């Protein structure tokens, strides 16, 4: 069994050596194709993370009409804490709100002295869970807040609420795009691998015909093709990931600040190891499938003249 494997590996290696340039072209093309997909997945992943972060930051603030006594405010907060979708509840008395605003204004805080205290109301602030942070979820929570005693007005303060919606739209678009690109990449890999292997088989056709003449089974001829295909797919996939990793590093180091702003302060993240392994494995698998197609086509064309 072992010498068979060694034999097949030898044949595959020989085929690779016989056409180094073609192999390089194939591996590079596969790498570019996989890189496009991996890049898209990276963008998708980061958009996802930013969206999640923003959704997590979504808040609802209820401004209290009158100066509600602290006890009542605390009771309202306790009630809200029990609602589904509410992660946290914060309360601010009018004095606290005023102090906070003053701190935010810094040296200009003195301006507040001349302002009517009613402009800075007491408030109740809900941190909303990501799965309740869409428009409908926020509306439902706002309605519940309004039903509480002493609530004057409810403001949806979601940091970048419509940006978030748009980000989600973009994410959905990217998901569809990823699917399409994934399919295209698979097709490209099939095309490249099946053609290089067909050419390689064609270059070796004399040898293969003689192998068939002396009783080689189809499987015996196919096995090295599978290895060659797997090699191309895996090498292409690994090269793509290496390129992507390098690219991300450069981005982080060179354009780190600008990029950080672009993604809302969330550091850009690479792909998780599992997904990377799946990409490489997928490329290998698709390539093996392609070599199967190529070998089948070749074997069907057997001729003796």
């Amino acid at each position: 069994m072992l010498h068979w494997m060694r034999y097949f590996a030898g044949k595959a290696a020989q085929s690779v050596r016989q056409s180094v340039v073609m192999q390089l072209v194939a591996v590079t093309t596969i790498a570019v194709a996989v890189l496009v997909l991996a890049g898209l997945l990276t963008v998708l992943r980061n958009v996802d993370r930013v969206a999640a972060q923003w959704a997590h930051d979504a808040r609802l603030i209820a401004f209290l009409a009158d100066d509600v006594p602290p006890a009542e405010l605390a009771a309202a907060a306790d009630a809200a804490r029990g609602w589904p979708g509410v992660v946290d509840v914060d309360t601010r008395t009018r004095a606290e709100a005023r102090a906070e605003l003053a701190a935010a204004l810094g040296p200009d805080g003195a301006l507040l002295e001349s302002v009517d205290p009613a402009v800075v109301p007491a408030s109740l602030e809900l941190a909303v869970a990501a799965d309740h942070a869409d428009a409908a979820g926020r509306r439902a929570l706002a309605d519940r807040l309004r039903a509480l005693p002493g609530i004057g007005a409810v403001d949806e303060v979601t940091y970048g609420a419509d940006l978030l919606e748009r980000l989600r739209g973009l994410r959905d678009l990217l998901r569809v795009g990823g699917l399409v690109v994934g399919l295209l990449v698979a097709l490209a890999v099939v095309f490249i691998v099946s053609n290089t292997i067909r050419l390689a088989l064609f270059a070796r056709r004399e040898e293969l015909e003689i192998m068939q003449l002396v009783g080689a089974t189809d499987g015996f001829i196919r096995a090295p093709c599978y290895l060659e295909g797997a090699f191309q797919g895996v090498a292409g996939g690994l090269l793509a990931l290496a390129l992507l990793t390098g690219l991300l590093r450069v981005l982080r180091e060179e354009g780190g600040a600008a990029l950080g702003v672009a993604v809302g302060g969330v550091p850009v993240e690479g792909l998780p190891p599992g997904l990377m392994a799946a990409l490489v494995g997928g490329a290998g698998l698709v390539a093996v499938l392609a070599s199967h197609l190529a070998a089948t086509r070749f074997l069907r064309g057997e001729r003796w003249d």
Partner: protein
Amino acid sequence: MLQMFHVTKQYTRDARALDDVSLRLEKGDFAFLAGPSGAGKSTLLKLLFAAETPTKGQIMVGGHNIHRIQRSSIPFLRRNIGVVFQDFKLLNRRTVYDNVAFSLEVLGARPRDIRLRVTRMLRLVGLGDKMHLSPGRLSGGEQQRVAIARALVNEPQILLADEPTGNLDPELTFEIMRLLQDANTRGTTVLVATHDPEVMRTFRKRVVTLKAGRVVDDTG
């Protein structure tokens, strides 16, 4: 060992390469397949090693009906049949040794067995000292000896030769024919297509003559 019953082969609708051919070779037989160019000699041999399928009729090789043979079983049939061609069909980018080792590699033989048997076979055909040359550097007769070594190294029960001496001068022709005869003496059933009357005169064996796809004479 080899049997054909009323075999017809048509490559095209209007012409029959073989027409109602029946033929029987017993184990250990040696026969020539004679006839002019286009008579159907090569076609008959191709049918026997399942490179072509008959249009009509039955073919038995070593007890198996190869008309109903599965594509996947053809390799196993061929392991029992050595084939030699006029143009040798050797790989010039490989050594003589590699060319012969091929027959055993595809069987999944162990490297050590391959080494032993290939070396022995090449000595038998008188090429013990040229194992590591490219066949392209050998004379025609030597190249055909390599091809014969390749055909015989896994000890097939049947040896088919399609004008094995067609490219060789008379002296080499007899050398090659003697190798085929030796194989026959060791028990291999041999069928040789030739249109060289000199060969058939020298080696007095059964002669099956084809003409326009029909058997017109059979001295057996």
